[in-house]
C-alpha cells in the first residue's frame, strides 16, 4: 500500500522537471526507448511514480540511471510531457537523496546558494594568496597539495558514503539478497562502464556524443593523473608537458562544443539546461582552458609576472573540487557506473533465485 503524495511533483519541479503531469499513460515513451527492456522498462513507470509521489519506489529504482537521454521519448510524447527531462530531473533528485550532507539538494534547488558558494571559495583563494604575499612558488605548491588532499577528502567523506547510501536504497532497504560472490563478479562490469560508458551506444544516434564524452572522460582522468602524479606544472619532461597540453586541449575543445550545443538547443538533450548543467560544462571548460594557459605562461616564462592567471585557475579548481565534484553533476560519473554494477547484482538474483 502506498500513499499518494501530490507534493512530490512540486518538489521535483525544483529539480527541472516540468509538464510531466500532462502524461496520460500511453506508454509511447517506453515503446520508443531503445534502452528499455522487458525486465527494466522505462520511462513510463517513472513518470507515473513521479506524478503519484511514490518516493520510495523511485529511490529504490536504478531506472533513472539506466537512461542515457537520447531524447526520443520527449520527441514522440503526444502530450509534450517531456519524459526525457523528467528522467534527468530524477537523476538530480536521486543525487540529492544519495548525498548524506543534503548540500546537493540545496544547491540544486537554490541558485543563490550555488553563487554564494562560488563567491566564498573565490574569496578564500584570494585571502590565502594575500596571506602568502602572492608568492607564486608557495601558492603553486599548496595548489598541488590541495589537489591531492581534496581528492582524498571528497572521496572518503562525501562520495564513498554516498555510494554506500545508494547501495542501501537499492539493495539493502528493499531486502535484495545478493550473495557476496556476486559483488566480486560484478567489479569488472563496474570498471568497464565507468571508463567506457558503453551503454550510451545503445541509444539511437548517440555515437558521436558517446565518442566526445568518452575522450572527455579519458582526457579528464588523464589530466588529473598528469597534474597530480606527474606534476605537469612542475615538470621539465617534454613528453609530460605535451601530454598535458593534449589532455587539457581535449577537455576545453569538447566542453566548448557541449556549451555550444546547450546554447543552440537543437537536440533534446541540450534543450533544457539547469544551472547545475551550465556550471558543470563551463567549469570543466575553464578548468581545461586555464590549465592550458597556465602551462603556456610557464613555458614562455610569463607566469612570474602574471600570477593572476594561476590564481584564476586555482579558484576554478577549488570551486570544481569542493562544489561541483562532491555536490554537483560530477557525481553522475560514479552513480551511472555503480547503477550498472547494482543492476548486474539484481540480475544475478533474478537468474538464480
Amino acid at each position: 500500500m502506498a500513499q499518494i503524495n501530490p507534493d512530490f511533483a512540486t518538489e521535483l519541479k525544483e529539480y527541472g522537471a516540468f509538464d510531466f503531469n500532462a502524461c496520460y499513460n500511453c506508454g509511447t515513451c517506453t515503446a520508443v526507448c531503445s534502452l528499455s527492456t522487458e525486465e527494466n522498462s522505462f520511462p513510463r513507470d517513472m513518470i507515473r511514480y513521479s506524478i503519484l509521489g511514490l518516493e520510495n519506489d523511485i529511490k529504490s529504482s536504478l531506472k533513472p540511471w539506466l537512461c542515457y537521454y537520447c531524447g526520443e521519448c520527449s520527441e514522440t510524447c503526444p502530450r509534450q510531457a517531456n519524459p526525457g527531462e523528467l528522467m534527468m530531473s530524477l537523476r538530480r533528485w536521486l543525487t540529492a537523496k544519495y548525498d548524506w550532507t543534503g548540500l546537493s539538494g540545496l544547491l540544486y534547488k537554490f541558485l543563490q546558494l550555488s553563487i554564494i558558494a562560488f563567491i566564498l571559495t573565490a574569496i578564500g583563494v584570494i585571502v590565502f594568496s594575500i596571506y602568502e604575499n602572492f608568492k607564486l612558488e608557495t601558492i603553486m605548491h599548496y595548489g598541488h597539495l590541495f589537489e591531492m588532499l581534496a581528492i582524498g577528502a571528497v572521496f572518503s567523506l562525501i562520495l564513498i558514503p554516498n555510494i554506500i547510501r545508494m547501495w542501501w536504497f537499492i539493495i539493502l532497504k528493499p531486502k535484495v539478497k545478493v550473495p557476496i560472490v556476486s559483488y566480486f563478479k560484478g567489479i569488472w562490469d563496474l570498471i568497464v562502464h565507468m571508463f567506457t560508458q558503453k551503454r550510451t551506444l545503445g541509444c539511437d544516434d548517440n555515437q558521436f556524443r558517446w565518442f566526445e564524452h568518452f575522450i572527455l572522460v579519458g582526457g579528464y582522468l588523464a589530466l588529473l593523473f598528469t597534474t597530480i602524479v606527474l606534476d605537469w606544472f612542475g615538470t621539465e619532461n617534454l613528453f609530460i608537458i605535451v601530454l598535458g597540453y593534449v589532455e587539457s586541449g581535449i577537455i576545453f575543445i569538447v566542453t566548448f562544443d557541449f556549451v555550444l550545443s546547450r546554447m543552440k538547443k537543437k537536440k533534446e538533450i541540450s534543450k533544457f539546461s539547469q544551472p547545475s548543467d551550465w556550471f558543470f560544462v563551463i567549469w570543466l571548460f575553464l578548468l581545461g582552458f586555464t590549465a592550458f594557459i597556465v602551462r603556456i605562461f610557464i613555458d614562455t616564462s610569463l607566469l612570474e609576472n602574471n600570477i593572476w592567471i594561476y590564481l584564476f585557475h586555482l579558484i576554478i579548481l577549488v570551486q570544481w573540487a569542493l562544489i561541483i565534484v562532491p555536490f554537483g553533476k560530477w557525481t553522475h560519473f560514479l552513480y551511472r557506473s555503480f547503477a550498472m554494477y547494482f543492476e548486474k547484482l539484481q540480475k544475478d538474483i533474478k537468474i538464480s533465485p
Partner: protein
Amino acid sequence: MKKRIGVYICHCGSNISDYVDVEKVKEIAGKENEVVLSKTTMFACADSAQNEIVEDIKEQNLDAIVVASCSPKLHLFTFRNVAQRAGLNPYNYIQVNVREQCSWAHSDNPPKATEKAIKLVLAGIERAKHSQALTPISIPSNNAVLVVGAGIAGMRAAIELAEMGTEVFLIEREYFVGGRASQWNELFTTNETGREVVSRLYNKIIKTNNITLFTGADIDSKSGSVGDFDIKIKIEPRYVKSGCKLDWAKFKKAVEICPVEFDDPFNFGLTKQKAIYKNYPSEFPEIPAIDFEHCNKCGECVKICSDIDLEQKEEILNINVGAVLLTTGASPYEPEKGEFGYKEIDNIITLQQLKRLIELREDELIYHGNKIKNIAYIYCVGSRQVDGENKYCSRYCCTSAIHTAIMLKEKYKGINNFHFTRGIRTYGKQEILYNKASKQGDIFLQSFEDSPTEVYNEKGQTVVKIKDILTADKELEVNADLVVLVTGMVPRENNSINNILKVPIGRDKFYNEIHPKLRPVETVIDGVLIAGACQAPLNITESVKSSLSAAAKVNSLISKGEIELEPTLAQIDKLSCNWCDKCTAVCPYDAIVKKEYDGKTVAVVNEANCKGCGICLPVCPSNSIQLIGYTDVEIESMIDALID
C-alpha cells in the same frame, strides 16, 4: 385481377445467380398465364435496369410487376418508385426475396435453392394478381405543438418551432423554467453559467408571440392522434397572484416568517428551504411560488404580502395540437446508502452537490465545518454498472467532474484533485479539459470494474483506495477530506406522462426512438417526439442539437396542414362486425374505437393511429378485419402457389 404482369429475376451480380438457376426461374415464371414478360437482369437496382422496367411497363402496358431480388428492406421503395415513374400504382409492385431467403440461405444446395426460388416467385405472381392500387391516406393536422419540459432543450425547440410558424404550448412541471441547467454554475466548455443560458432563452421566449408558457403544469389526459391531439393540461396554482410585482424585501420577510423548513431540492439537500421560495433572484418567471406539498397554510405570509393567495385553485386547460414533443430531461443518479460510503461516511457527496457547494461557498471550500484540501472523485457511480441495471455511460460526467476540478483549483487555494476513474471519456473537444486538468497536477487513477475503488473510514480519516492499473496494479490510497461521487444520469420520473402517452421505454429506462441513426427523435407513437436527456444521457450541446432536430421533424410533420400515412392498414367490415372488443384489447396503438353504425355497435379503425401490424386480425371471431395489402385473398393465393 391483374392480367399483364412483368417478372424480373435479378442476378445480384452473382449473389443470386451462383446458387439459383435464374434462367430456369425466368422460364417457369414466364409460363404463367398472366405473365406477359419474364426477364433476368444483372442488377435490377441499377439505373439502366430501372429505366428498362419503366419502359417495359409503358410499352407492354403492364398492370403489375414482380422483382425477385433482395430483401424488401433494401429495395422495396426503389421499385415502388420505379412503378410510380412508369405510371403504375406503387402498391401493384411485389418484391420477392430470393437472395436472403434462397441463394444465401441455401448456398450448400443450389437445386433446392432454385426450387424454393421458383415457388416464392410463383407466390409473388399470385399476390401481384390480387394486388390493389392504393393511395396514401391523408389526415388533417393542426400546426400547433405541445412541448413538455421547459429546460434548455424544450425552450430551444419551442423558440425554433415558433419561428417556423408553429403555435407552441410549452409546459413545465416546476414553477420555474430552466430545468437542471439552472442549478449549474459554470458549464463546460464555455464557462457560461447555466443561468445565463437559461435567461437568454427565457427572454427570447417572452418576446416570441406564438409561444404560451405554463409553469406548474403537467399533462392530465390525451385523446386523438397525430395531427389532432386533444390534450388536457393541469395547472397547479402558484399561490402568488400573477400580477404581482416582486418586492424583494417583502419576499425576504415572507420567507423569514414562514415556519416550514425542509431539505432544499435545488441544492440537493445542502441547505434548507421554506414553503415560499425562489431558488435564486434572477429565476424565471420572476414571481415566487409556494410549495403546497410542504406549506401548512398558516397564512403568516399573507399578512405581509397581499399578493399571496392561498385560495387559488388548480386549473384544467384544453388544447389541440398536431404533435407532442417530450423534453422532460434527466436527473442525477441518487447513490444507494452505503454505495461508496454514501450517507454512511459524512464527507461523501455527489458531483451535483459539489457544484452547488462551490456556489454556496464563495471564499473557502468548507464542508461540515472542515476545510477541504484533498478531493477524491469516484467516477462512473450509477453508470456502467456491473451488477446494477444502468449499463450505459452517462457521457457528460467525466468532463463535468474534470471541469469542476479545474474550477475548484482556480477558485480555492491548495486543492489537490484525485480522480478515481474507470477510463476517462472526455471525447471530442472536451479532451482539452482533461489535458488542462492533468497539466495543473490533477492525479488520474484507473481501475477495472472487477476491482472497484474502495472508500472506508480509518481512525477518523476517509481513505480512498484503488488498485491502479496505470501503476501495474499497485494499491494506492489517498486520505480524502471530501469524496465526490461522480454520478451519472437517470431519466426523470414521469409516471403520468408515461401512462398517458405510452411512449416506449428502453431497458435503460430512457425513452426509445424508432431508429437510433435514421429516426433518432421520433417514437413509434405517431406525433409524439422526444429530444434531449429524456432519450439518453446527453450534455447541453447534444441536447440542443437533438431538440433542434426534433423541432425540424415536428415542423415537417404538421406544418403542411395534412399528414400522409401508409395505406397498408387494418380495415374492418362494418357489416359483419359485431362489437366484441377483442381487437381493441390487443391493439397496442389505441387504433380501434367503438362506434355506432346503422343501429349497431361496431369497431372502427383510427387510421392515424393504426400501424398495420395485423395483430387484430387473428383475434376477430367473425373474420371482419382485413389488412390492406395483405388481404386474405392475397395471402391464400400465395399459400396455394407455394403448396402446389
